[in-house]
């Protein structure tokens, strides 16, 4: 009986590994047509023409990368600031309820963020945000052109709000795992609170913080609904952040259920395969970085 139980449980556990492998294999199998037809050029061709059956994914890669990068640019400083505030400056009985609230931010589904994006953020950006930026920073190529409201900048801001909870909760945990001797040592040398954080705490937690950033990046790259609803859905590559663009997830969400020919649908699946590959890479990097910090701490105590 014990033997049977053990084998049964093992079988189920292995089936999960099997399903993950199957997922990768099926994605690969069902994107064979475009892989054979376009090869690597799929990655740098810019035409997306379902009628003429010519597919290139560069505009989507570009849109995904730019919006995710923007999101990190906004979310990392703000999120780190909040993580430092929660872990170093206030006592746990203030910090714990606040981080519970932040988790609430993570529980809101992405389609609701999209709803807020369409009806609040887009008009706001169109009427005041983008004209203001154009006036102040219009000499830069990133802030030129017509302020449509929908576009890469709006998508980036919305994504930033969505990934904040991940950055905050992981960074806070990492900062809390920095040993107190580290803080006491530098305080005893006469450092101020801020110098202590800057010199003794952050460098110690650095690679873990990078890990949290990578985890957030993986979220941002794979985010679908909110981005689809505010990015503007136009497969162009423009330098200006006001311009509408398209992301890898958005093209799949918009066109998958309407794709007719095999090559068309398999091209969409190949975009999914690329997403899959990128996620594996970033996720592995993040794991290694977070693991390095936590194992370092465990090693000392």
């Amino acid at each position: 009986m014990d033997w049977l139980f053990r084998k049964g449980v093992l079988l189920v556990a292995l089936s999960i590994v099997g399903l993950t492998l199957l997922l990768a294999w099926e994605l690969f199998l069902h994107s064979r047509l475009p892989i054979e037809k376009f090869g690597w050029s799929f990655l740098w061709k810019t035409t997306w023409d379902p009628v003429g059956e010519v597919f290139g994914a560069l505009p989507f890669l570009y849109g995904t990368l730019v919006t995710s990068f923007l999101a990190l640019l906004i979310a990392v400083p703000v999120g780190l600031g909040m993580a430092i505030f929660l872990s170093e400056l206030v006592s746990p009985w203030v910090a714990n309820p606040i981080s519970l609230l932040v988790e609430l931010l993570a529980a809101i589904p992405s389609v609701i963020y999209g709803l807020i994006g369409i009806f609040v953020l887009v008009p706001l950006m169109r009427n005041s945000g983008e004209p203001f930026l154009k006036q102040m920073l219009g000499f830069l190529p990133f802030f030129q052109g017509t302020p449509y409201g929908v576009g890469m900048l709006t998508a980036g801001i919305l994504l930033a709000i969505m990934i904040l909870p991940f950055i905050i909760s992981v960074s806070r945990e990492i900062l809390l795992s920095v040993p107190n001797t580290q803080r006491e040592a530098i305080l005893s040398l006469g450092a101020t609170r801020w110098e202590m954080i800057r010199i003794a705490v952050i460098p110690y937690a650095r690679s873990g913080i990078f890990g949290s950033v990578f985890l957030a990046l993986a979220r941002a790259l794979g985010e679908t609904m909110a981005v689809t609803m505010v990015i503007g859905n136009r497969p162009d590559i423009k330098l200006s952040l006001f311009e509408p663009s398209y992301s890898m997830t958005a093209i799949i969400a918009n066109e998958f259920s309407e794709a007719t020919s095999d090559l068309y649908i398999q091209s969409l699946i190949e975009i999914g395969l690329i997403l899959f590959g990128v996620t594996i890479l970033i996720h592995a990097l993040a794991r290694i970085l977070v693991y390095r910090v936590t194992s370092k701490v465990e090693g000392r105590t």
Partner: protein
Amino acid sequence: MLFLTGLCTLLILSVLCFILSYIVVHGLPGLHLNFFTQLPKPVGESGGGMAHAVVGTLKLLGLTGLIGIPLGLIGGLYLSEYGQKNLIGFMVRYASDLLNALPSIVVGIFAYILIVLPMGHFSALSGGVALAFILIPITIRNTEEVLKLVPASIREAALALGVPEWKMICFVVVPTAGRGIMTGVLLGLARVAGETAPLLFTAFGNMYWNQTILEPVASLPVMIYTYAISPYEEWHQLAWTAALVLLLLILGINFVSRLLLQWQFKK
């Protein structure tokens, strides 16, 4: 600089409060009984509700639970009881981490290839499978963590009485961690309830009641999406109300699960 970090905190909290209050303010006016009892009206007619989508979401959650919970629980059980430090344990852990990090839309594509393609049409079943793939890794990791917390003395006490290993696990270890496991499952379901992307081309959507699990089914998140990008004013109102209902459902599940956990620790 320290002042700045406080400012960051204030900024994020005010964004959160703004989002929540905005949804409540815009969703509340449409929250009548009709929303839960009527089907959508054609464009131009006022009124109508999303009864089918509320039921559809619950149906999908049921299906997801039916497929995902057993697999997740047994997977987690393997990791904590047999797979602490061996190769298979590492593989299972890695696979579930990977599944957890995958964009949900990629999981949707997988469910599409696995079920929609062979069957030839969209179905509630494929939606349930897609969501189950998101639920499984969450349940696995949580179950593992909770089972690991069960003290060795309890296991040893059971074994010392001559109980076979499988009985020890099923009737001593699992019930001890029962509430923690439930909490994890509920949190996973709350996360899955709001997923939209994988449903777009698996469960698809439906303007009427669906009869069997082999037909397309409507769900709240997909309805919010289609109504939000539509050009009609009445539909926008319905989208806000649906958002409020969905949010209440998710926060409600979250609240209940946390309550369960508190209760366990007090005991």
